[in-house]
């Protein structure tokens, strides 16, 4: 029987959740027996090659590219999981949410105390994805099936949830494994 496929991505995140996934240590060998990775930084596959059972999404949506990738994940994954506080609530990037976007950009590229920018302009190259007005948690953009909070969620948490999902068992985590920090 073909192994189920897992895809992962980091949107407006720091890759800390991916690091936490690698933190499952030697269990990663077991994971490779259980699943194949599709689109993911783990194997550097850039585009989906087919349908995936599980999509793990780290980070929220800060720009238009994040939204497109997230929608692509929703299209290709049976179960889409928000991994980490950025995906579930916006996280640190969402600290900009109560400052108007124009002010954020001007502080970063024009007025900030350490800015050197002789053009005096905010970069506006078509190659750069446009920022959204604010950072959105994933479930405010597409339907999300499971949320795993944590900054990052511990390796044990990720492992327990993946194993439960892959074996079609209910997720029943001990108290210690769900934390918001």
């Amino acid at each position: 029987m073909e192994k189920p496929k897992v895809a992962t991505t980091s949107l407006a995140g720091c890759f800390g959740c991916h690091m936490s996934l690698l933190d499952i240590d030697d269990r990663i060998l077991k994971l490779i027996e259980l699943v194949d990775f599709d689109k993911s930084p783990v194997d550097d596959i850039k585009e989906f090659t087919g349908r995936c059972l599980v999509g793990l999404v780290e980070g929220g949506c800060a720009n238009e590219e994040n939204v497109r990738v997230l929608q692509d994940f929703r299209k290709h994954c049976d179960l889409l999981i928000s991994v980490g506080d950025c995906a579930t609530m916006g996280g640190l990037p969402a600290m900009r949410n109560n400052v108007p976007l124009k002010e954020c950009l001007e502080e970063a590229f024009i007025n900030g105390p350490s800015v050197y920018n002789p053009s005096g302009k905010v970069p506006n190259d078509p190659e750069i994805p446009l920022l959204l007005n604010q950072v959105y948690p994933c479930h405010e953009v597409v339907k999300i099936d499971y949320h795993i909070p944590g900054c990052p969620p511990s390796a044990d948490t990720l492992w327990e949830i993946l194993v439960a999902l892959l074996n079609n068992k209910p997720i029943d985590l001990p108290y210690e494994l769900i934390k918001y920090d």
Partner: protein
Amino acid sequence: MSTTITFIIDEVEVKAQKGQTILEAADEAGIYIPRLCAMKDLTPFGSCRVCTVLVNGRPQAACTQPVAPGIVVENNTEKLLNIRKNIIEMLFVEGNHFCMFCEKSGNCELQALAYRLGIDAPAFPYQFPKREIDATHRDIFIDRNRCILCARCVRASRDLDGKNVFQFIGRGPEKRIAVNAQIKLSDTDINLTDKAVDVCPVGAILRKRVGYKVPVGQRLYDHKPIGSEIETR
């Protein structure tokens, strides 16, 4: 005449003293009713509604409702747990609760209740309101991003410290905690020995220079859910 009365919480007979609230009687009986604004030694306030129970079928705040002989109280039911969960979720989306860097994380009652009630992500859209910080005082700061308007600081300062340092101003979404001084916290006579400094259930009023002192794994709610200290009595 005996002042002891009996009543029922979730089919368990509980003894109580006349004049006690349902919350106090439940605590003594080792039954945990979740709460945020209620705190031992503070005047009951009834603002957060997390302790809502059904008394003879009617919703009441357990922290303000006195016991009465023979009343039937429902506490740990699926319906009430869902209502409490929704209240906690609303508190999370109405403020800016960045647990990942908050000094109170691990010792926070709001966070601990969310853990206990099994909240993975709030069902409501995040508001990301703009809130002010007051770090003018030498030893204490206010971060209104985390304030849940429980009024514990208001009551502690007024009733225990005899100072009236804190009060609410504004209404609705603009309601916020303010200080009883010309402008800022450093203009008040609050100091580190005040009870009001340590009653905040969240990280809205904190001491400076002691953050993150307790390592992860040793904090209040790292291993045991909030309320287990009452349930193991």
